[in-house]
């Protein structure tokens, strides 16, 4: 393992705070059934647009649903969605990058051109195209976004892999007669992990914004499921009626999580360098 020294600088401490925020919100999402004071989907039109109160600490939305409960339950899809995007994109991106860097030759040439072509598609546009083909929903949006992030990860990891595999220790393993697959799995990829981790963390932030945008457009998570992106969208008409809470709270949480992941990615990048 790469030793990570405990940060003593101010910048280091913001990294710890960012990690704390992320872990806390993940925990909230996991414990939603126990933490949420109400059923997030329970409609009570008599209670619409309630202000802060003991029963509804953050008030209610246009259908009288408890906002706090919806935000707590929303943490699940809002965090799990980007996580799936990142895991899928990272696994695919690393596999493609390492294979093409290791093999070189025509495989590398073909993969690099495909990555270039994929780069030309904005992630959200690609997602909209795929949703148009396969229908709306979180799964489809996640897969489409993951594919659109593969080029970013693949390009970075490929150039790092090229640098790493030129190191004498890799040559030594080749001379020892260790197979290419074993060298990549046991030596090359583990040595690239710090970089991969930092990049994945940064990607999480982008994925979260993009997924929220897709849900906002009504192509991702479907109402009435609680999701922060959906809440920003469904809170729109209420803003005009003078009740901005729903969009505001959900939007604020997205900002906080994205900022936390960006900070964390930056710090990870520094610590593991």
């Amino acid at each position, binding site marked *: *393992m*790469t030793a990570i020294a405990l940060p003593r600088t101010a910048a280091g401490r913001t990294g710890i705070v960012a990690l704390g925020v992320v872990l806390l919100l993940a925990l909230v999402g996991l414990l939603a059934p126990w933490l949420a004071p109400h059923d997030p989907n329970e409609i009570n039109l008599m209670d619409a647009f309630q202000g802060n109160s003991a029963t509804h600490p953050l008030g209610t939305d246009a259908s009288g649903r408890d906002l706090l409960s919806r935000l707590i339950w929303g943490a699940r899809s809002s965090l799990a969605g980007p996580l799936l995007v990142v895991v899928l994109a990272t696994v695919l991106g690393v596999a493609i990058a390492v294979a093409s860097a290791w093999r070189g030759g025509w495989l590398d040439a073909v993969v690099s051109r495909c990555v270039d072509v994929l780069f030309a598609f904005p992630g959200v546009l690609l997602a909209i195209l795929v949703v148009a083909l396969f229908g709306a929903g979180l799964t489809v949006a996640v897969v489409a976004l993951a594919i659109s992030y593969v080029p970013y990860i693949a390009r970075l990891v490929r150039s790092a892999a090229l640098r790493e595999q030129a190191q*004498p220790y890799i040559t*030594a393993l080749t*001379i*020892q007669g*260790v*197979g290419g697959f074993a060298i990549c799995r046991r*030596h090359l990829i583990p040595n690239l992990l710090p970089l991969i981790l930092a990049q994945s963390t940064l990607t999480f932030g982008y994925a979260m914004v993009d997924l929220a945008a897709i849900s906002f457009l009504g192509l991702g998570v479907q109402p009435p499921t609680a999701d922060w992106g959906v809440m920003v969208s469904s809170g729109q008409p209420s803003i005009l009626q003078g009740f901005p809470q729903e969009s505001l709270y959900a939007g604020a949480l997205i900002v906080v999580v994205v900022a936390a992941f960006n900070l964390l990615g930056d710090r990870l990048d520094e610590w593991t360098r």
Partner: protein
Amino acid sequence: MTPILEAQGLRKTFGGNVAVADVSFALARGGSLGIVGESGSGKTTTARMLVGLEVPTQGRILFDGEPLERARSTARRRERARGIQMVFQDPYSSLDRRQTIASCLDEVLRVHFPMSAEQRAARVSELADLVGLDDRMLRGRPGALSGGQRQRVAIARALAAEPEVLILDEAVAALDVSIQAQVLNLLADIRERTSISYILISHDLAVVRQITEEAVVMYQGAVVESGPTAKILDEPQHEYTRRLRASVPGPGWVPGKALASGGAA
């Protein structure tokens, strides 16, 4: 007796550039051969051809009298690995920084021999003993070791496959002079005990003199002189060897004087 390793008219070109023009030599079983030359003389390319990292454009390499073919399959590469091994110049980048020394040696054993975990562990400590590493170092990662200790690890790793020929590519060049002497003594000891053969690639004539019996001098990709090491270094025949020898600072060498007489260095 057949030489254990023989190069016949090796040539390697990269595009239009000739890295190695014409190299022939024979390494006796249990012998030690020095390849001497300045940077860019083709020493390292020759070494890379010997271990199969490069394919010669012309010429052939005989191992124990049999020509070595290009090793395409992993099985063939392993076979070759058990014949010829190599120690690299830079002890800092030739070990995986994430791997403990013990697991680094263990990995080589796992690749080459059908041994149980206990047998491998025993062999790892045997190898560590051979190169003078203790148990604490075995459990550590390369980051905890000095340059000389790392080079001992690299030697142990190369010996793990029990090769008949060990190629030392500037293997002591990156070490302090005193550590150099230790490692050279170690190499001499190992040769006495195991009857392994060495090819020592170096630009350092003192190092070549210390552990080789035969030497070839390379200049611009070709062998310009060959024979017993002592004879080559004491009575150089080729102009280049004479210049190489004269460029080594000896006793009585005064830096100021050299600068004054040689003009701008």
